[in-house]
């Protein structure tokens, strides 16, 4: 909260948080196994969309500006990266750098205009820009975006640097980092390292004077303006940083699978990142990543459940009951995973506006009061040491 606190205890706690985060991310292939999610493609997605959501959170979580067109930067990043693969080299670093620059410029232009308005009007402006990008990518910009067929690499691409260094290649080369192919686990670890870096940068931003300024914008922009601060450059900085994060995520999507389609820019994709941030906890550091993992997990694992799986899960029930249970549960899995998502989302917004992170915090608080202070029972009507009362609650 106060700057003094940050300087003393905060820094050490941040380093612990970062170390813990890095540990959790890097060991994902291990602890995700019991959940059936320990395969590299999905883990890559976790990391990539984690970056996307963390970046979105820099804008929405800190400044309160709800952008509904963030996927545009994701798409732009993807296209930029694939073009870098096609024209220069299939090494991923130049592609990522190029994507970051292009998406940053894009964000600068869109942010410069959109940030003239606030509230709902800002949301609509960003939505409008993103939809324009999407529609143009599908129609007129086909020479650049390859329209509906998606932009992909071809054998006839120039790849100037690669041809110059290694001579022409007979096949379509796959993307690599100095020889390390961006498929499978190497790809995941590459994304994971970038995710950790992104997390660190987000943390530094949120602790910096810039972060304080952004939070001031969120809590009361009018007051900030009246004190003589021009808040727009700060908001624009947040917008551009957040757009760069999205561009980086898009570039990574292209690195792991060199294919860029316009549907990445559609408003549903923008809505998805909003869901991720809200689900995990807006304004928290870890929240967006948690939300991204949950949504991508549901999308990939939950949607793969079918009636067979359900029958085996509920096999212990009597036949009649089993069929009913399976029929009801069947609504929520497989094709209907959106229903689960929608329900979960609504429940969270209604009862736990701070998302999963707030839930965890509350649980932690309960546990702490339960352990440390038996006196805490006085506050509640039912003392914890009388089970009969507690049971009736």
């Amino acid at each position, binding site marked *: 909260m106060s700057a003094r606190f940050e300087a003393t205890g905060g820094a050490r706690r941040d380093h612990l948080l970062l170390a813990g985060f890095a540990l959790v991310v890097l060991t994902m292939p291990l602890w995700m196994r019991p959940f059936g999610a320990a395969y590299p493609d999905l883990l890559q997605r976790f990391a990539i969309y984690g970056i996307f959501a963390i970046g979105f959170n820099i804008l929405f979580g800190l400044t309160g500006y709800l952008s509904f067109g963030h996927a545009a930067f994701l798409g732009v990043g993807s296209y930029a990266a694939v073009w870098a693969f096609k024209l220069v080299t299939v090494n991923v670093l130049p592609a990522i750098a190029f994507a970051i620059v292009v998406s940053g410029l894009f964000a600068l232009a869109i942010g410069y205009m959109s940030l*003239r308005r606030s509230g*709902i*009007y800002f949301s609509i402006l960003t939505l*409008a820009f993103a939809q324009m990008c999407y529609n143009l990518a599908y129609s007129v910009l086909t020479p650049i975006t390859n329209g509906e067929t998606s932009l992909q690499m071809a054998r006839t691409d120039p790849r100037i640097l690669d041809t110059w260094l290694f001579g022409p290649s007979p096949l379509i080369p796959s993307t690599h980092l100095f020889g390390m192919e961006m498929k499978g686990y190497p790809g995941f670890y590459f994304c994971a390292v970038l995710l950790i870096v992104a997390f660190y940068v987000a943390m530094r931003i949120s602790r910096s004077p810039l972060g304080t300024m952004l939070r001031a914008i969120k809590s009361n922009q009018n007051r900030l303006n009246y004190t003589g601060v021009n808040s727009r450059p700060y908001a624009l900085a947040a917008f551009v940083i957040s757009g760069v994060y999205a561009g980086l995520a898009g570039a990574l999507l292209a690195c792991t699978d060199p294919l860029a389609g316009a549907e990445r820019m559609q408003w549903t994709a923008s809505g998805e990142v909003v869901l991720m941030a809200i689900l995990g906890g807006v304004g928290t550091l870890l929240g967006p990543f948690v939300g991204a993992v949950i949504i991508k997990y549901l999308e990939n694992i939950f949607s793969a459940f079918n009636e067979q799986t359900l029958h085996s899960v509920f096999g212990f029930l009597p036949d009649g009951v089993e069929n009913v249970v399976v029929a009801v549960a069947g609504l929520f899995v497989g*094709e209907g995973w959106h*229903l689960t998502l*929608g329900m979960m989302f*609504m429940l969270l917004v*209604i009862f736990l506006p701070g998302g999963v992170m707030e839930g965890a915090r509350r649980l932690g608080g309960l546990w702490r009061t339960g352990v440390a202070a038996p006196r805490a029972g006085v506050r509640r009507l039912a003392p914890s040491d009388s089970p009969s009362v507690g049971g009736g609650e």
Partner: protein
Amino acid sequence: MIGGFCAVTTQKLLTLSKKVKDESVTFFDSYTEVPYLRIWFGETGERIIDYAVPLSILLAIPLMLLLGVAIERGLIRHFYRRPHADQILVTFGLAIVLQELVKAYFGANPIPTPAPAIVAGSAAVGSWIGLGDAVSYPWWRLVYFLFSVAVIGAVFAFLRYTTFGMVVRAGMRDRETVGLFGIDIERRFTIVFGIAVVVAGLAGAMYTPILSPDYHMGMEFLVLSFVVVVVGGMGSLAGAVAAGFLLGILQSFASMNEVKSLIPGIDQIVIYLVAVAILLVRPRGLMGRAGVMEA
């Protein structure tokens, strides 16, 4: 604030419209497969099937009213005091849930729903106003147009010229003061919300012959109507209507081949382009009021 919110939610609830329309229409379609109606009523039964879409309106009105009131009472009411972002998000979540429920019940494929045979063809609008026979317009769209004019007029008159409407408008400005007068403003907002939902439902039901309904048609309209409302200006009915017409006409205009050859791709983006231009020039849309939905 709530005025703006009502407007947004009205549009959001277009998602619901699809539900009613599907229900009513399949209800009659099932008779088509096993035409009991025909057996029972002969010619009349056949005609009832033919008029499924207009009749579905009769079903839509009470059902949507019920649904709207239930949603307002159960969900929206608790969100009036929460931030705007929460309101938008919870209705967004609701839209996802409803959409999926519709999908689970009606399936994922579009359900074709023809208009009554009597309005199936095109109207020779051109010859009526002396432009020659070449200008024609589908009858159903004409009906739809008149219908929408009637509905808009009714809503406008209701809000403008009745005491009830006056109280509601006052409540939008300052609900506390209205409450202090001893008026149960909460109940009136519930009713207004119900009406909003009914209007959205009617729009959806009448639209079915033009576009076969499927489960995600609501979402597609959601974005567009959101843009329309904001461009028109939050809290202004006239603004929303004006923006709707403006964007619709510009869209059709931009789809003409002559225009397209001049500026390729303009038909894809004209709506958003205009929206951006208007919002940058007029901060609150065409006719928006100050202080509505500005976080």
